[in-house]
């Protein structure tokens, strides 16, 4: 069943993207899109980006889990903003203005986001960047009105060792009235580094977008390239990718579980989870030669193969994890002082999670049932048996429980994958040809979405890697409202969004 927005998009001119079609809309048709989106809430916005001449949007029809892309020419005039209809578009529109210089007409918010006024160029990815020199402007924050409100600036340098980001709290006593994030401190110019290079060279940047979710990003990048040139990697490569992805999920979920407890000053689970994670990481290093499996997934396949004794090392480390999960869970649940901290803290409303199309544990703890592993093109997952846990509670505790349940599922998946690891090639040759592809791979934070366009020489003409955190960061601002300031670290850790992943 298609709603008004879906029909509007599909009335455009198809551009030959795979596996989901991209339709080019005239500026007039795009101008009708916000109103049509209002009437079709089931069409979620997954990402919004641009190239030098066009603005592209990726939508997901939630009931059918079908994605569709829409584009409109943007150079020389303003494109219609989607943020009035889809709140998740706000940060994308800010980014598009800063990187490509396309201005969204009627946008909710266009304040600077990544560009802190310290780059030598304005709109570095536009056809003609403008040289810029001068004093960096003072950041603007949204006004907060009320009696006795004061501001707490936190970061970008923190007392602990975490990624840099600035948080501006407006508080009344201990209660947070508004939180605003200001990121961009980890801007690396990733997009301009990737443009004009070959996919084999650019995958290294995708792998370094956010170190903890390197497998998911490099797989999503590779899958987008493979879709663009219509290549299917050999089965062994796909199985090894899934194996690495699940191991990545396991070590990150273990890490987050420990850190959430530690942020409530309950250090025992932190110590145990850290110990178990270290065991898994060492097994991974033995199997794949790198603790985080960076640069193991390449366009066309994987390299190198799993080490001869790697499977045993992985299974042994997972046995240790599995043996300790019940007692850790018991400790987590039985301590009233800990439960008092996590239950009802940082509540995220299900309608907000749906409105922002939040993926991963953030969405699934607030009732949004989406997992990119269930998409039919994401082999080998359609051949494997696994559950996707979904909860409605939406608090720190619910996000934690989702993680623990996913941990069990991932361990079972690793066993399945190792049991039926097919023999054969690891790499399929990549033809040099033009094409356009999109891929979504479920990392531990949610689906990593990569769009790529190759020119006739097989070089990257357009690229956008969208980390799941793009749609989760704004929700953290919503979840912390009316909580106390001292509970922010706990909420923040339960979301665990990536700073680096969004500071493109």
């Amino acid at each position, binding site marked *: 069943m298609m709603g008004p927005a879906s029909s509007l998009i599909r009335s455009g001119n198809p551009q030959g993207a795979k596996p989901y079609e991209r339709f080019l809309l005239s500026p007039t048709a795009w101008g009708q899109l916000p109103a049509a989106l209002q009437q079709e809430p089931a069409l979620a916005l997954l990402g919004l980006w641009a190239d030098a001449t066009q603005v592209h949007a990726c939508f997901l029809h939630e009931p059918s889990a079908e994605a569709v892309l829409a584009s409109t020419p943007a150079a020389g005039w303003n494109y219609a903003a989607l943020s009035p209809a889809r709140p998740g578009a706000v940060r994308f529109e800010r980014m598009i203005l800063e990187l490509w210089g396309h201005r969204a007409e009627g946008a909710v918010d266009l304040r600077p986001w990544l560009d802190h006024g310290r780059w030598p160029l304005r709109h570095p990815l536009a056809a003609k960047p403008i040289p810029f020199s001068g004093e960096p402007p003072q950041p603007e924050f949204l006004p907060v009105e009320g009696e006795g409100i004061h*501001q*707490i600036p936190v970061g970008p340098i923190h007392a602990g060792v975490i990624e840099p980001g600035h948080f501006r709290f407006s508080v009344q006593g201990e209660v947070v009235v508004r939180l605003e994030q200001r990121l961009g401190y980890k801007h690396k110019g990733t997009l301009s580094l990737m443009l004009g290079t070959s996919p084999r060279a650019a995958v290294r940047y995708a792998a370094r977008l956010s170190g903890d979710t390197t497998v998911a990003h490099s797989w999503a990048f590779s899958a987008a390239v493979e879709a663009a040139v219509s290549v299917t990697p050999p089965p062994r490569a796909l199985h090894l990718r899934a194996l690495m992805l699940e191991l990545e999920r396991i070590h990150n979920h273990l890490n987050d579980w420990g850190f959430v407890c530690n942020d409530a*000053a309950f*250090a025992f689970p*932190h110590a145990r989870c850290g110990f178990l994670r270290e065991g898994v990481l060492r097994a991974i290093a033995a199997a794949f030669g790198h603790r985080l499996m960076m640069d193991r997934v390449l366009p066309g396949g994987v390299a190198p193969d799993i080490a001869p004794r790697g499977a045993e090392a992985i299974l042994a480390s997972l046995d240790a994890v599995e043996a300790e999960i019940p007692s850790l869970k018991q400790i987590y649940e039985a*301590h009233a*002082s800990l439960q*008092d901290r996590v239950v009802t803290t940082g509540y995220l409303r299900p309608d907000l999670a749906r409105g922002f199309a939040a993926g991963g544990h953030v969405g699934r703890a607030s009732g949004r049932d989406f997992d990119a592993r269930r998409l039919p093109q994401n082999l080998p997952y359609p051949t494997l048996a696994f559950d996707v846990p979904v909860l409605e509670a939406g608090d720190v505790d619910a996000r934690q429980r989702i993680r623990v349940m996913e941990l069990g599922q991932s361990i079972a998946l690793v066993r399945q994958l190792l049991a039926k690891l097919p023999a054969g090639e690891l790499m399929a040759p990549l033809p040099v040809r033009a094409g356009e592809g999109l891929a979504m791979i479920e990392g531990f934070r949610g689906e990593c979405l990569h769009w790529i366009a190759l020119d006739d020489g097989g070089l990257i003409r357009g690229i956008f890697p969208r980390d799941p955190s793009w749609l989760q960061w704004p929700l953290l601002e919503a979840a912390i409202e009316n909580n106390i300031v001292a509970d922010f670290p706990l909420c923040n850790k339960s979301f665990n969004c990536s700073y680096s992943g969004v500071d493109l």
Partner: protein
Amino acid sequence: MSGGFADTLISLVTQVLHLALILALAPVLTGCVRWLKARLMGRRGPHPLQPWRDLLKLLRKRPVLAENASAISRAAPYVALAAAVLAAALVPSFARGMVLAPFADLLLIAGLLALSRFAMALAGMDVGTAFGGIGATREMTFAALAEPVLVLAALIFAILAGTTNLDVIIGIFQEGALGLRVSLGFAAVALLAVAVAENARIPVDNPATHLELTMVHEAMILEASGRHLALWDFQASLRLTLWLALLAAVFLPFGMAAPGAGPIAWVIGLLVFIAKMAALAFALAVFESAIAKMRVFRVPEFLGAALLLGLLGAVFLFVSTGLS
């Protein structure tokens, strides 16, 4: 007159030995608690002497002050440490009858602790960073409830012993003439709660945290560095030692050498004191490992309960002494 002179000399020696012991022991005690907590978590843990090493390292470093720091930032660590040292000198460890014993009034100790806390809160607010302010407001909110508990406990002891002088109170408790009293039990629980809050321990505060938004004690000294940080850290260790020594002296008074006793009694007192402190440090480490930090707005409830217990203890005593 020569006997009087000898007594004074002995009490002076006791005092000096006591002070030296407490000053040397304080960082070791902090180190022991940290080490025990690490062991309980399955970690190897830093050496118990690590706090001493850190102190010696920091003492050699010049403090870095904010441009707008006033004289308060410079003076506060010295004021706080001086008050803490003086308070620590008043709480007996291995022997009673120290030269400062006549001044060892519980209310004076409470006042000295309040002075050192006041200096810390001022230092937190001096340069005007947000975290210092948050820490200072939280600390003062907690102190407003914690201080009356200490005064109420002093009241209970005063009713039982007829004085608020710590040395005399311990002497009376040591004789065991009072027996077990319900009010003393209440006072013990109330004082334990205050000790936890005063020393920034879990569940009120987390001494190991790196999360600036959750800090209380650490937030106030977030700007401190070098020598000043060493003084603040030493002061915090001293307070922990002082509180544990106070609890041990009042509620576990056995083994302490009597006034004017010789070196043999001192050695016994010293060994018993170290055993008591080790037991308390172990209890603290176990307690801290088994509990999460409470939400900030629950701390006033927690201290309010302690206040109520102290009040109940005092009321029971009033009623029972009135009836008998």
